């Protein structure tokens, strides 16, 4: 009592001095001094996209999409986390740092998106701009939950920004239905709010991206239920209805006169030309540039795919031509599995042109090849930057290609004329003949699935395709060797750092 009085007395005197002990931020932004102008809103939207550029996320796309299948191998002294993913060491998955990083950055993206969704509607700015910004925020939130759902199943659901310690721990979605409903609703909202681009904008999403992703989401759960994937089999949706939704929304991208910006790129090599990020194939692509200051702003993704040769500049042949393009060599983290290299059909340019088994010097002499053993593996050259500056490049992970949406349409639709047309374009571009006509739906879908494997190789799709077709436990040697079941592989466990710190799980 007495002490309290004394404090009050002291406090009273001090307050007499009219001192205000409140603090005001200086030199950094906070809720108080932000979300005032249209530029603020756009800056907040860019901050959402910026989250996935960090190497914790951008490198994980391949670790979770390709490394864990038989198409790709890690290097001998790869980090333990990536070896565990490759080898399906499921007992270590709860503490796997790559999984933890992917999980964390998905939520960093979600939190940034939630801030925009909370703050931007009340801003007095141009309505068209406001809708676009909100649409992008819904898109990125949906994109993140889509990836969380594919990898982890039911995860904690945040739809408002985290502002206090009490906000940090929320329960997981109560069912897979609820989880996917959130994804679908958000993509739909994004699709409604977003415009179609007049010209592609690298590192930003439009309505085509929203509907393309929405189609992928419908296809994912439709095919997963159809193929009896554990837990998905018990979901409530109608498979055919969802296939039809996938066709509908993919159609809004690939079969829609209003959507003219994105289309097939006629030239296979142009798709992977680092100077053409705004090419017609790239519906959604990360935005990196070699002039950046830190990794994530610039990219070292090229270093991951390329093997070490000598440290000096190496030269690659451009397709069948004699034109050469330079690049640095790499660290050999993402290695092509030989079984996959050999699985391509003869004459497939995606094998001959995009997977390299010989490199040259400036004068055109072979300096290393798989034949002479100086190249430890034939490498994927979808990510090279001839204008690299040291380790810095502008190589950008491809997040949603037109061809992916086209194959999504084809798989969902089955053997329709439009589906054939789309698949055949992709095959012809790769130097292959048409798919045999008159296939039944099941066979047609299987052939589309194969086409996805070759067309989208090393772009972070393979594992998800196997997973929704319930083929992980049958098609991955490391899993089969251990006798893992579909139930053990359908989801990665929620990272322990989440379950330890979130009492609501």
């Amino acid at each position, binding site marked *: 009592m007495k002490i309290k009085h004394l404090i009050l007395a002291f406090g009273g*005197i001090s307050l007499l001095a009219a001192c205000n002990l409140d603090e005001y931020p200086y030199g950094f932004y906070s809720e108080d001094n932000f979300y005032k102008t249209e530029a603020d809103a756009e800056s907040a939207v860019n901050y*959402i996209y910026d989250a996935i550029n960090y190497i914790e996320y951008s490198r994980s796309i391949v670790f979770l999409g390709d490394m864990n299948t038989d198409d790709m191998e890690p290097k001998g002294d790869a980090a333990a986390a990536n070896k565990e993913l490759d080898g399906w060491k499921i007992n270590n998955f709860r503490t796997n740092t790559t999984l933890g990083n992917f999980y964390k950055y998905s939520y960093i993206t979600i939190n940034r998106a939630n801030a925009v969704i909370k703050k931007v509607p009340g801003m007095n700015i141009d309505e068209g701009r406001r809708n676009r910004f909100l649409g992008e925020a819904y898109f990125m939130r949906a994109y993140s939950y889509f990836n969380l759902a594919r990898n982890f199943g039911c995860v904690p659901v945040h739809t408002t920004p985290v502002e206090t310690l009490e906000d940090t721990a929320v329960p997981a979605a109560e069912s897979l239905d609820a989880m996917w409903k959130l994804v679908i609703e958000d993509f739909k909202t994004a699709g409604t709010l977003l415009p179609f681009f007049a010209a592609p904008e690298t590192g930003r999403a439009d309505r085509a991206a929203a509907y393309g992703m929405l189609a992928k989401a419908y296809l994912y759960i439709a095919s997963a239920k159809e193929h009896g994937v554990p837990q998905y089999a018990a979901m409530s949706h109608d498979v055919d209805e969802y296939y039809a939704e996938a066709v509908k929304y993919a159609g809004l991208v690939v079969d829609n006169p209003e959507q003219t910006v994105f289309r097939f790129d006629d030239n296979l090599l142009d798709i992977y030309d680092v100077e053409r990020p705004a090419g017609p194939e790239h519906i959604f692509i990360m935005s990196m540039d070699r002039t950046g200051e830190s990794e994530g702003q610039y990219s070292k993704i090229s270093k991951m795919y390329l093997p070490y040769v000598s440290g000096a500049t190496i030269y690659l042949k451009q397709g069948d031509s004699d034109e050469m393009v330079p690049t640095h060599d790499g660290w050999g983290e993402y290695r092509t599995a030989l079984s996959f290299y050999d699985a391509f059909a003869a004459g497939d340019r995606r094998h001959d042109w995009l997977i390299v088994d010989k490199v040259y010097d400036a004068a055109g002499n072979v300096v290393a090849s798989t034949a002479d053993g100086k190249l430890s593996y034939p490498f994927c050259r979808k990510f090279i930057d001839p204008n690299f500056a040291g380790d810095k490049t502008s190589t950008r992970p491809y997040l949603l290609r037109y061809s992916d949406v086209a194959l999504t349409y084809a798989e969902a639709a089955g053997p329709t004329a439009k589906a054939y047309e789309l698949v055949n374009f992709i095959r012809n571009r790769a130097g292959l003949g048409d798919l045999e006509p008159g296939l039944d739906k099941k066979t047609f879908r299987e052939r589309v699935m194969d086409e996805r494997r070759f067309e989208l190789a090393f772009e972070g799709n393979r594992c998800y395709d196997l997973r929704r077709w319930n083929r992980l436990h049958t098609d991955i040697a490391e899993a089969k060797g251990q006798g893992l079941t579909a139930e053990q592989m359908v989801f990665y466990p929620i990272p322990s750092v989440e379950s330890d710190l979130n009492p609501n799980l």
Partner: protein
Amino acid sequence: MKFYLIVLSLLAVCLWGTGNVRAQSASRSMTVTGKVVDQNGAAVTGASVVVAGTTKGTTTGADGAFSLTGVAADARLTVNFIGYKTQTVEIGGRTSFNIVLVEEATAVDEVVVVGYGQVKKSDLTGSVASVKAEKLTDIPANSIDGLLQGRVAGVQVVNSSQDPGASSTVRIRGNSSLNGSNAPLVVIDGFPWGDAGDLKQINPQDIVSMEVLKDASASAIYGSRGANGVILITTRKAQENVTRITLRQQTTVSGFSSELNLWRDPVLMAMLSNESSINAGLTPTYIGATNANGVYYPSIAELQTTWTTNTRWDDLVFRSTPVSNNTTVQVQSSNDRTMFQASANYYLDNGMYIEDTYRKYGGNFSVEHKLLDNLRMKASANITSNKRHNNGGLAYWRNPIFPVYDDEGDYWLYGAQDYSHPLALTDLQKNDSKGLDIISFASVNWDVLPCLNVMAQFNYKHGEQITDKYFPKKYSERGVFNDGYGSIDNWKDDNIVFEAYATFDRTFAEKHRLTVMGGYSYENYQSRSSSLAAKGFINESLGNENLAAGDSETYSIGNSFYKTELVSALTRINYTFDNRFLFTFTARADGSSKFGSNNKWAFFPSGAFSWKMHEERFIRNLNVFDVLKIRASYGISGNQGISAYQTLSRYGQHKYFNGGKWVTAIGPGYQSGTTGQDGIYALWSGIPNKGLKWETTAQVDLGLDMSFFGNRLNVTFDWYDKRTSDLLRERNIAPSSGYDKMWVNDGEIRNRGIELTIDGVAFQNRDWRVGGTFVFSRNRNKVLSLGNAVQTGLKTDLRTGMQYEYYGNQSEQFRAYTNILAVGQPMYVFYGYRTDGIVQSLAEGLSAGLSGDDALPGEFKYVDLYNGDGLETVDENDMCIIGDPNPDWMASLGIDVSWRRFDFSIFFNGVFGNDVLNTKRFDQPSNMPMRWTADNPTNSYPRLNANRQTKLSDWWVEDGSFVRIQTMTLGYSIPFSKKDAARKVRLYVSADNLYTFTGFEGYDPEVGMTGIYSGGYPRLRKWTFGADFTF
């Protein structure tokens, strides 16, 4: 409310006191005059002359004279002056007096400064140690705090760097904070200056004394900044009626105190290098061939015969005998109303590295004026300008077969990535900083009533620093990467402190003395900084003089601002009963802008009790003790570990490439740190913790003071137990929040120890005086809690169940963290593998649980401690605590001898039982030849192996105990008669770091708090030749 009551009652009491005087003077009043002198007949100015039992009194003037009117003829006069015994004189009807004051025989009744006041040493209830600066200043120093080393029990000072202008690490009673400062608060003449360790702004020779406040009773008056102890510094002020000019000149010559450990025989170096490569399966270097960089390395045979280059890089890199200088001139003059003092200082510290210098110019001016007899004003200003040309860290260890110049006379490089040519860097690289500091004081001191004094003080401090750097396009790593790199960094800060306090001091009924102090303090601190950098210079002849000449695409700029406010109310109440029982109560309430909005105010109380047992008859009758006093105190103080804005919500910003250009992206969450190997992953923060607050330290202190033999032997003993809780830490939060970390108050650390100080005069006669001081202290540090193990992400040692986390940065050499914080252990213990000699055969290696290259003969034989994992192999679960960098105890001994006009002193300082991680234990020219080979199957050193990934193990841990002859001084004072212009001249020579007794294998075991020795150069031995002239 309560406060006003206190003020009112104080006034009432004072009035009652004056009323009393009137009542007495009703008998017969008269005027008395007199003069107060010391034993030598010199006038004593400022002595208080009080009519006993009343509040009537005066102070003596410049000539020692006083005059009092209206004094009762039968009254007594009490004459008091600091440092002298109190005299009581019966008036007995006389009107004129000549009063001789006798100096206090011992230090017991010195006055010591405590926070917001001063007190007689014998009346101290807390643990306060006092150091006279004059004892320390025979050694020139940039900052006084480094000189406290070994001088005060419980104070640990580490001077790990020998570079010019280097700072010190100062700790009082151990470390107690993980993320806040552990340095004591330095208070200069009442101005709370900041962390101890780098007090370069105050010339040590302008300092009179330092008081170290150790326990909570003494330090809690500094509230939220008192937890690490407080060092009060009193600077020199003019004395009344003295005119004096003092010149102090010191010239210092430095040199290494031990030999450099370098390759002098290139043949041996090359042979061992080749052996190391061959053992690792690599191509040896010295084979008479040109390597990939185009550098020719001779073969061993060539080195033995025709090779002539054998560069002694150390001769080029180090000055042979750097000479440094320290000159101080002080002038003081005064009359009976005004006193002033001025001093100027020039300090030059030439480091061992060529062109590595630190210069400082200082000026100090203070004036004190009596406006009225009871109203004094003081003002002072202290200005320091410092200039550092940093040329440290040059590669004196460079390969001796490398020539200095190539055939064209350019600097010879071993390739484009040679960033260590010492002469090239000396010539072309720039790293200069200039600083300016101003500290000013103004105060008013008003004796409102004889029993009531009011003091108001205003302080202003300004500091600024500008750093210029240029890294050339060739020769320097940064310059090569950036095609030349130039930068300018600006920083300035301003600190305003206003304090006012009133002190009431009165004795009632002769036995009850009450001193009450109440005050208020306001502090406003602001700092700003800006930095400019440019890269890509076409022509680099201007260095960083024209940053705009760099590539405009890559300019980089930054700026920051930092502001804190602190408002405090404080009080101290001393009550003494019969000069036997002393009670002290202090309290401070601190309101800080830094604290979370839900915790703006903090309250820090303390209490202490002391019993002067020597005033009791039964003790006095023993005739043993001159002083026998016990003390007990308990209190709470704080540590403002939080930095400004840390409790606010904070957004991040990052550049995002959009629309073909970089745009600024902004939103919730900012990158607050990194994690993962080499820090490649980002950590995210930004959620505000509105409840964030100070760290709280509760401390118990029990003390005993004793004096014997007519106060010639003094013993002070203290035991303390200090618990710091609410440690400021970052906790992990669920990643689904989008954040990693958040600041919270969690965790507890204890420091417990004993301190003993014995000082005395062993022998004294007309010619001789032999005295000494022995100081001993022992602190036991223990981490009691690191908070919730899950929330803070603690790791668990599987073998012992110990919970721990890493501390500091990863060591490149071991690719591991070297220090940990572990529950139940002292802070910073080393964590690694245990070794059992060297593997002598592959079979032995395999059976020991080693595998791969680790099992080969000649490798370290790591011990497989843990088998709970079912694996009989050496893995990370076999790690254990392999050393403790905290000393078991520290002790020092100082001996002062004077004989006639000679004075001699020697000071030994020792630290015992601390472990040092000697990262250079193997890779040294002295040790590598003792390597394991098939012919020399030693168990002491491993084989040479260029490919080894060495694990951190106890092999690298050494006992860092040492005893140092820290200083030794011999002086001679030349006397002068009154006719001479000079009054006193003293000539002396002193040695710093004369000799070190240690078993440590590196150059010197005095390393930082985490106990990591990483080479450097040998400790310097400094000889100082000094002369003091007083006119």
